[in-house]
Structure formats: C-alpha cells, structure tokens
C-alpha cells in the first residue's frame, strides 16, 4: 500500500550533504529546518539532525508539576505498517535509533514543535508516496 511505498522511498532521503549546511542555533533546543526537512535534536551539546521521514510519531505531554515532555518515535523495521522493505534488508545488521524523549522548560515551544513536525512529515510523506506511485 501507500505506507510501504512511502517508507521505501523515504529511506533514501538525506537531510544535509555537508556539515556546514546546518544552521547554528543560539539556544540548544529542538528545532525544525523546513528547507532541509530536518528535525534537529540537542544531544550532549550538539544539534543532531534527523530527516523528518525517519520519524514515525511525535507526541507531547505535561505532568502535574507542569513539566513538559516530548517523545519522538522513529521508523524501525518489522513493526506494523512499516514492514521490512528494501532498505531494511539492505541495512541488515544495522541498529536503529527508535525513540527519544526530552523534557522541556517551554510548553509552548514543544506544542509548536509537535505541530511543525506533524505538518512537515505529512507533506514529505505525501510527496514521496506520489513520487513512488508515479515511478510504478
């Protein structure tokens, strides 16, 4: 189905070609780079990019102490709706980053991030499944 086609095509996508293509943020916080279709995550003082097509779901929640959390789940092979595709067979032996959780000081920023990721992901997946369909 569509999911399969999209997953297959999307794994060839690359966020950045060169190290210097990344913009340098003032603050270390989760950022969305629309142009490069990337989500940048602050990990140990570095901004680590992930192409939005590697992301499966994103959600946020707030606990009773008004701490805000965001959880990003990535595509891994062998889960429902993401069957083993050409790519996971090609990458046999690879280890996948499956999930990351962050605590944030800024709930507004997090809800914005969640919306931006969802929208960008939808756009990219629609484009990729269209491209895959045209190719068949």
């Amino acid at each position, binding site marked *: 189905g569509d999911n399969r086609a999209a997953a297959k095509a999307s*794994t060839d*996508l*690359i*966020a*950045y*070609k*060169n*190290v*210097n*293509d*990344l*913009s*340098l943020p003032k*603050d*270390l*916080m*989760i950022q969305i780079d629309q142009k490069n279709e*990337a989500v940048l*995550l*602050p*990990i*140990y*003082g*570095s*901004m*680590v*990019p*992930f*192409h939005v097509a*590697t992301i499966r779901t994103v959600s946020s929640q707030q606990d009773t102490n008004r701490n805000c*959390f*965001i959880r990003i789940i*990535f*595509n*891994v*092979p*062998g889960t429902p709706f993401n069957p083993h595709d050409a790519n*996971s067979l090609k*990458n*046999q*032996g*690879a*280890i*996948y*980053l*499956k*999930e*990351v*959780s*962050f*605590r*944030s*000081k*800024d709930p507004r*920023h*997090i809800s914005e991030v969640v919306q931006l990721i969802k929208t960008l992901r939808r756009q990219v997946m629609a484009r990729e499944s269209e491209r895959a369909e045209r190719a068949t």
Partner: protein
Amino acid sequence: MTDGHLFNNISLGGRGGTNPGQLKIHAGGILWKKLGGGKAVEVDKSDILGVTWMKVPRTNQLGVRIKDGLYYKFTGFRDQDVASLTNFFMNNFGITPEEKQLSVSGHNWGEVDLNGNMLTFVVGSKQAFEVSLADVSQTQLQGKNDVILEFHVDDTTGANEKDSLMEISFHIPNSNTKFVGDENRP
C-alpha cells in the same frame, strides 16, 4: 607564547548543553575554566589517552579521552588552530590526533560503538551523536530487541539548554550479530 596556546572562547559540551570558557593547552596538559568561574577541567598530559578532531557546523571540536574513561569535548577552534594544535600535541604530548567525521545525513540507522564511558551512534562510518553512559541512570530491555537508556535528571548545570534529553532507545534487529549474547548493554 612559548608555553602553549590560549583560547578565550571554547565551549565545553556535555549532558546539560554547552558552557563557554577559556582553554589553555600547555606542555603539562589541558586546563579549561568556565567563563565567570565555577567549573574547571584540568587534565594532566600523562592522563590523556587520545585526542580527536571533528569538523562541526562552522567550527571544530576537540575530543580528549582520558584514562578514567571520561571524554571531554571542546568546541570553537578555527581551522588554523587545528593545524597548530595538532603539531603541539605531537611534539609535546607525543599524541597524533585522530580525525572523526560528523554525520549530517539525518538517518536513524547505523552502528553503536562503545568506548570508555561513551556510546557513539555511527551512521555510514561517521559519528551522528555521542552520549555518556556515566549519565545513564537505568537501562531496560524492552521485548527482545529494544534497549532503553534513561538519563539522570540534571538541574545543576546553568547551561543554555532548553530541551533536555531524558530517554533514548535503540532497536537491535535479530539480523544484528554484533551484540548477540551480550545481555548487559546494547
């Protein structure tokens, strides 16, 4: 300066983000002091196991691995600093820096390397990110194929980090043969 090199704008990276400071690299070792006081890092040259250079966006990062398994990362070196410090390390410490490359492809599949306290996620033989296992409060195995690392909650650093990493998990498919039989760590 004959006795080494002084840099006024070098950040130390870590769990809670980055802190700006001053770095002195001298014949006896390495000394970093946080801007405005507080934290300092002092490494004697005899404790240094190895140093690495990595090009990061707009600047260069120096990695210093020391005997007790710790790994310090200093960011903010110009290309010409890399050349002169490489000579300095070779002449004064007898250490040849290794070059590492940063992965910016945005892929979420690769390899996991364990070295000292550091866990490195490597994509296409380039480093995507590193975390320190010294900051991991708990590891869990979920199902047969997933390993979860939970990080200490750290409120002590006055760093510039707005969103803090709490948890990370790796999926290790059955097709991976590197970590078969190791039930402790990914």
